[in-house]
């Protein structure tokens, strides 16, 4: 698995719950407290161990942990900025989700990002089909979509619904694309780093 994925889980645990919880999780899975390197690759089984250890440490079910991770990622400024390049408003963002895998690969060709298929059903209702290398990507994407709705200032209802075979599904009900003013996004990266 790409180190960026493990590193994201690590950053989520450390930033949201503190270094001591992260150290416990690291010890559980037999790695040092310095954790993962985003630009190295790790055994796939280690990612699974990491998710299980995080579930145990937080005492939360898998889907909840993964959704929280997705929401966390969208608040990390460099990631948020890269996501905001997908569209001017939430509507455009939703319609560009199918490109998300391609965008991810444009930056990191060996990143195991899930394949997303976007179906518009009726006025404002969409179903997103998620096919990822490990189960649970649907929940991660649901968390990400929810946090990005806040970022764009859109009013949405997002729900992980029954999977169809190996294909996980997320339902999006877009009530208003511009409900409140979203967070600021300038095309030019602010000077002095992020």
């Amino acid at each position, binding site marked *: 698995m790409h180190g960026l994925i493990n590193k994201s889980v690590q950053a989520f645990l450390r930033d949201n719950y503190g270094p001591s919880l992260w150290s416990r999780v690291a010890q559980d899975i037999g790695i040092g407290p310095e954790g993962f*390197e*985003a*630009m*190295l690759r790790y055994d796939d089984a280690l990612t699974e161990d990491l998710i299980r250890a995080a579930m145990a440490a937080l005492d939360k079910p898998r889907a909840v942990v993964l959704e929280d991770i997705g929401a966390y990622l969208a608040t990390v400024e*460099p990631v948020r*900025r*890269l996501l905001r*390049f997908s*569209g*001017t408003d939430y509507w455009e963002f939703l319609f560009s989700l199918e490109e998300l895998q391609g*965008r991810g690969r*444009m*930056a*990191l060709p060996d990143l195991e990002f899930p394949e997303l298929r976007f179906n518009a059903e009726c006025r404002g209702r969409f179903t997103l089909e998620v096919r990822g290398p490990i189960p649970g990507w649907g929940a991660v994407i649901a968390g990400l979509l929810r946090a990005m709705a806040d970022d764009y200032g859109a009013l949405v209802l997002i729900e992980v619904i029954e999977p169809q075979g190996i294909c996980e599904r997320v339902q999006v009900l877009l009530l208003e694309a511009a409900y409140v003013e979203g967070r600021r996004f*300038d*095309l*030019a*990266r602010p000077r002095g780093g992020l």
Partner: protein
Amino acid sequence: MAARCTVERWEDALSGLSPQAMGQLMPMFLWLDRRGTVRALGPTLGKILGPECPIGTPFAQHFQLGSARARRSAAAGGGAMAGGRRLHLTLCARPDISLRGSAVEVGQNGAEGVLVNLTFGIHLVEAVRVFGLTEADFAPSDLALELLYLQEAKTAVLDELRALNARLDDARRSAVTQALTDPLTGLANRRAFELALDKALQGLALGGAPFALAHVDLDHFKAVNDTLGHAAGDYVLTKAAEVLRAETRRGDVVARVGGDEFVLLLRGALAPARLAAMGARIIARLEQPWVFETAVCRISGSIGVALSAHYVTPDAGQMQADADAALYSSKRQGRGRCTIAGSGEMAEGDSRLS
């Protein structure tokens, strides 16, 4: 490459294309008349050229064409810009930002001037910053946003890689240091010493400086270790290491190569008398009693020295054997002394120097 078209009377059909629609499709279009005066322009280009309306002003007031051929054609009224070739323009107000695009003639033989469509080239990131451009300033068909996205993604990945490289380099350095250091005394270990000796010999072969090799054995160390325990033994080794370090210079190598065995690689052309004095100083300091907890530890040292200058072609094995023989001679003569190999002070049968 001919465009496909099923429309008859194309010009009439297209007359419904408003400047607004044109600007939406091509936010950086520019329409010049035959004399090179601006007739119309897209909203993004307008934003770039500043608050004063450029309509009716000459092209050359705002842009400079990139090549001599193009400059001539601009002077001729702009019609000759339309050649299907890529155009390069720079902004007069911002010569650091260049634009590129292409131009086509409008009307019969360019009677209505030329239509130019522009885009940012490689200076996109800078242009976005300087002119405060937003997503709305780019046509959806323009890859500008993808380019900006890639630029940021690339920067983030490179930052990560740079940080990773720095961490790996630190780890490598400390691994190398660990692999070459004696953990108890912090001196060089046997491996580090052998590397240094090889290097000194190679340097010598290339006309480098001579050096001396000193083997130092602690005397009575075993007694300290056996009667006062390992902790006292370790303490004495640490103190002995301090003495050796203090009595040598920065460029010299001090190594612990066995339990109570040390070697010194002393650089430079040192006279035997100076080496003997140095040996005597070391031994005198080793013989000062050290107090470990409540116990007094007394040791001494025996030293054997070999000088590279004594050999026609110095060789690591031979020099070490000769330093050992000199050390052995010091021990045989009652310990607590320093012997220089080949100096004539060695006991009969000890010298293997030829």
